[in-house]
């Protein structure tokens, strides 16, 4: 399991919880605190983040930056190049 | 059973339409008047009205054409950009002489502009934004109460003259809540028979044809002369306005709709300051009260027209005044509502000018 972490631009966060839902590691939660916009913002609450980028992908407000332990050269997950040609979308 | 209710202007207008026996509404959502469609989609349908959300304003106005032609009391509503899309249809309806109600809850233009209140569509409403020589009867409410009252009047006028009628309001009148009381009104007593409607050609009559096409110029001129004659009757019989403290007035403000309420307050302030001010509020923008303006121009020292636009109705005021007294204009645009204080300032400028003239003389 790769080790990773995420950074939140908390003032941009609207507390929609989509990242929390998307995180397979259940590493995220809303802070009891409010940002200036008056939203409870998302934060990392466990240290088991793998840097899978799922949270960043579903975030509507581009709040999240994702980091991961350097490995042998690897392209950012977020680019399409690692999606195999033949995969068809499975709804699940 | 007329209890007083607190309602949004848009809702009051919609409720009035139901009570006026409006059989069908065709429209497309647009701020700040979507509540009309929404209220009718709920209350209207429950009470037997046909309420169809069309694919566009172009479709809406042409559905109105068809339904009105089929003999029904019908309406549509929109706001500025949507009304622009209806111009071709309105020209057709006016020429085919189909009675209907079109509501424009005016927002700030041009273009997509802003959704805040405006009076920028005065020219479009009164001079005919569509092609050719036609006129809409245009009513300008100034309160939620009138948003309701004018609906009954509008439908009756439409049927009386077989002419489209427009209620020209603004975003604030549509969105604000005020007290409103609905008049007792029995549609059966008001809706006339419509022998011209296309309801199926029975043996006892020739077929009915509703068209605006008359390829022979001679015929088309006849149609136009007939319309002009009708408009003459309308200007003779249907002019409506309200005057406030004009009897002893030296300076008169002309304003309609929401602005007239603010101007009213300005008149009060002005009088406190010793300016003998008065107010003329046209309730019909077409026909416009030229006669009343002329009469006032004969005796006052100056007229100030206030509008939420760059100066549109002021042209009609000038046409009524014809140089008899100075005419000034004060306006705000883009959805900004002038304050009573601003209006008083504008009035003071006019008064000042007048004084200077006096001195010069």
């Amino acid at each position: 399991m790769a080790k990773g972490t995420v950074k939140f631009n908390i003032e941009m966060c609207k507390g929609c919880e989509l990242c929390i839902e998307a995180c397979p590691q259940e590493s995220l939660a809303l802070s009891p605190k409010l940002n200036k916009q008056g939203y409870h913002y998302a934060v990392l609450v466990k240290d088991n983040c793998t840097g899978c980028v799922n949270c960043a992908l579903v975030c509507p407000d581009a709040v999240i930056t994702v980091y991961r332990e350097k490995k042998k050269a690897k392209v950012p997950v977020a680019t399409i190049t690692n999606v195999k040609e033949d995969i068809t979308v499975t709804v699940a | 059973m007329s209890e007083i209710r607190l309602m949004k202007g848009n809702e009051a207008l919609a409720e009035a339409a139901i009570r006026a026996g409006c059989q069908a509404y065709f429209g497309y959502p647009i701020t700040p008047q979507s509540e009309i469609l929404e209220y009718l989609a709920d209350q209207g349908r429950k009470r037997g009205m046909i309420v169809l959300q069309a694919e566009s304003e172009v479709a809406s106005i042409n559905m109105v054409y068809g339904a009105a032609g089929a003999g029904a009391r019908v309406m549509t509503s929109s706001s500025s950009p949507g009304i622009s899309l209806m111009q071709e249809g309105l020209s057709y309806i006016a020429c085919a002489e189909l009675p209907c109600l079109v509501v424009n809850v005016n927002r700030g233009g041009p273009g997509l502009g802003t959704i805040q209140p405006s009076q920028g569509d005065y020219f479009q409403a009164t001079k005919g934004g569509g092609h050719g020589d036609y006129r809409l009867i245009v009513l300008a409410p100034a309160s939620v109460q009138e948003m309701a009252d004018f609906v009954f009047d509008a439908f009756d006028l439409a049927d009386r003259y077989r002419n489209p009628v427009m209620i020209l309001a603004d975003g604030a009148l549509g969105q604000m809540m005020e007290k409103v009381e609905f008049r007792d009104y029995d549609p059966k007593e008001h809706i006339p028979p419509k022998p011209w409607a296309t309801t199926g050609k029975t043996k006892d009559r020739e077929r009915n044809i509703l068209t605006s096409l008359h390829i022979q110029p001679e015929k088309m001129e006849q149609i136009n002369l007939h319309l002009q004659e009708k408009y003459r009757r309308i200007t003779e019989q249907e002019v409506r306005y309200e005057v406030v403290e004009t009897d002893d007035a030296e300076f008169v403000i002309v304003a309609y709709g929401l602005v007239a309420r603010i101007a009213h307050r300005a008149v009060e302030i002005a009088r406190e300051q010793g300016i003998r001010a008065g107010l003329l509020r046209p309730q019909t923008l077409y026909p416009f009260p030229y006669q009343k303006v002329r009469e006032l121009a004969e005796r006052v020292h100056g007229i100030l027209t206030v509008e939420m636009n760059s100066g549109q109705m002021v042209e009609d005021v000038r046409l009524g005044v014809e140089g008899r007294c100075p005419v000034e204009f004060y306006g705000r645009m883009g959805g900004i509502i002038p304050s009573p204080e601003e209006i008083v300032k504008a009035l003071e400028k006019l008064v000042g000018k007048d004084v200077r003239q006096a001195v010069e003389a």
Partner: protein
Amino acid sequence: MTHELLIAGFGGQGVLSMGMVLGYAAMIEKKEISWMPSYGPEMRGGTANCIVIVSDKRISSPIITTFDTVIALNQPSLDKFESRVKPGGLLMYDSTNIITPPTRTDLEIVPIPASEEASNMKNMKIMNMIVLGAFLERREIVKIESVVEALKKVLPERYHHLLPLNEQALRRGQELVAMHV
């Protein structure tokens, strides 16, 4: 007497209905009233506000730029409208939701822990009634009784069992300000 009031907060906080109830109450007292909501895409952000004018004279414009009272239920609203209170006017806000308090010194400033109180009372929905009660304690432009009667009108039948709770909330609001002197 004319009172010009602005109520602002998140859409979900019952800002608009709070103004509406006040309006009905004023109507019951045969006063002139106008209620003007904010509308349009600025609401996308989730904030809403309404202007309520209560008077015994005819009301000219429903849209005005400065107010006798501003009630702010979230931070953005406070930030946006603090400057719009007339000097000497009343600025009331929900101290639970709002971290950075107002800075003006020429106002009567009344923080209320409304949300906290509402959760104590186990129903966030009545937060707006707590605030209304508090406001009327400071500016009695209508009687609490009228508000209670207004609630009967505004609330659909099926919610009438909540009337007592709402009345409690109004009273609680009054107490909160009464304490806070």
